[in-house]
């Protein structure tokens, strides 16, 4: 589903965010990308949904080679990738319902389908009672659930979440992760970048750890925690 070979990414002349990264994420996997701040997690995700272009190496997403992708084709690639952010990125001037409808409209969903699909997805994330509320009237957890609803309403093959629980307390963070797990069970490939090693610990999924733009460990689900306990202890104090 996502394959990277020897990918390099530089910001300016000096700063190398990604240094010769290679990885393979299979269809239907749930993968955590962890690592300290500045390790290159966000850059890695941005390259998957074409917000950043690799300077070198090859990235294949859903069989498409991103280095050969024309600018005009990027929107069509993104329609197959849902993205969730730490700061939600909802449109504040639109209601919860309209935020979802908008995502459907952008990809040309027939008007007759939009209402039904928006309603369905909001019910899935448990926000059917908030459809007329505006984002700023919702709690952080609710806003993130709207963002997830928007990301999955078009049934993308891949869901990318960049620190989805960064602004949420532990209980709400668990709720959000359960929601992501539910989406994964339905067949979506989920890639989550996070600092929150507690969550990583509980979820027992594959973990790719980045440090200084390089992959320092790639651990499959069952063994992840026995192996990384030391690192979890090291990273935990920095979690807000």
């Amino acid at each position, binding site marked *: 589903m996502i394959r990277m070979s020897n990918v390099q990414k530089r910001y300016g002349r000096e700063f190398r965010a990604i240094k010769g990264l290679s990885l393979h994420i299979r269809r239907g996997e749930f993968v955590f990308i962890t690592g300290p701040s500045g390790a290159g997690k966000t850059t890695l995700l941005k390259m998957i949904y074409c917000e950043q272009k690799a300077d070198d190496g090859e990235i294949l997403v859903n069989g498409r080679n991103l280095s050969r992708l024309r600018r005009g084709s990027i929107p069509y690639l*993104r329609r197959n990738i849902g*993205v969730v952010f730490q700061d939600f990125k909802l449109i504040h001037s639109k209601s919860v319902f309209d935020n979802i409808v908008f995502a459907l409209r*952008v990809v040309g969903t027939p008007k007759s389908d939009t209402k039904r699909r928006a309603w369905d997805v909001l019910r899935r994330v448990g926000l059917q009672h908030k459809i007329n509320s505006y984002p700023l009237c919702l709690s952080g957890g609710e806003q993130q659930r709207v963002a997830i609803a*928007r990301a999955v309403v078009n049934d993308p093959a891949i869901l990318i979440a960049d620190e989805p629980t960064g602004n949420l307390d532990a209980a709400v963070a668990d709720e959000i992760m359960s929601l992501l797990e539910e989406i994964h069970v339905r067949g979506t490939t989920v890639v989550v970048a996070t600092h929150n090693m507690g969550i990583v610990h509980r979820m027992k999924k594959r973990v790719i750890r980045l440090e200084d733009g390089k992959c320092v460990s790639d651990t499959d689900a069952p063994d992840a925690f026995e192996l990384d306990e030391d690192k979890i202890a090291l990273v935990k104090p920095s979690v807000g």
Partner: protein
Amino acid sequence: MFVQNFSYFIEEGFRSLRHNRFMSVVAIVTIGFALMIFGAFLIVYSNVQQITDGWIQEVEVTAYLRQGISDDAADEIKKRLWENREIASVAYVSQEQALQRFKSEHADAAYLLEGLTNNPLPASFEIGLSKEARSREAVERLVAKLGKLPELEGVQYGEEWTKSLLTFLKILRLLGFILGGLLGVAIIFIIANTVRLTVYARRDELAVMRLIGATNWFIKGPFLTEGLLQGLVGALLSLGLLFGMYHFWLPRLQASAGIFFLQSVPLSFLSVDMLLWIVAAGMLMGFFGSLMSVGRFLKI
């Protein structure tokens, strides 16, 4: 899908106009005044052109016959003149008729003819021009051709004033291009600036649109519609102002004694074609103005 997108663009375009009410009103009024100035110029130009067209159509060429040409010979020449495509009518004015005409037109100067034994006025042909000969070049060609006829002594037409009239029209047209160009650039920049503010205010929304897979045209659409609408409303405002001025202000101006030229000439408003051109120009400039702003934003 196209219809759905189109209705979305219109909806969003109007929403944006409402949202940035103050800036939109400023832009629309400025466009309205700029196009009004251009429209007023077009009214002046089209009227001057209409008047000069009328004058040029009335140009008559008078060809004077040499002394001693008989009426029969004159008949022969008249037949030959008829063969020219440029000539629509030929009237023969004999020496006698010329004298009678002079007497009736200048009754108070009858003393000038006293004491004359011979009729000094030459016989002439008064030549009306056909449609294809109603340009300065065609008139000059015809005059040159007539000048070669040995029976004719001289050919006269209002060459001086025709020439200066046509030069005046050319200058007026050039001025129109310059004025139109300058106003056009100004309008494009006004719209570009207003739309740039909207784009800036909605940059987060646009970033979200890009992330969820909106094509560039889908993102640009509402802004282009906003520019088009500003151009359209501005153009309609300018036509309203022009119409108001034409019907309420111009009659008063004509009535005032100072403008003798306007008093005697029936002036007309812009033709439907020109009205449509002004509206189309407003919309087109609105479109390009916003394209400039949005295009720049999407490159970032």
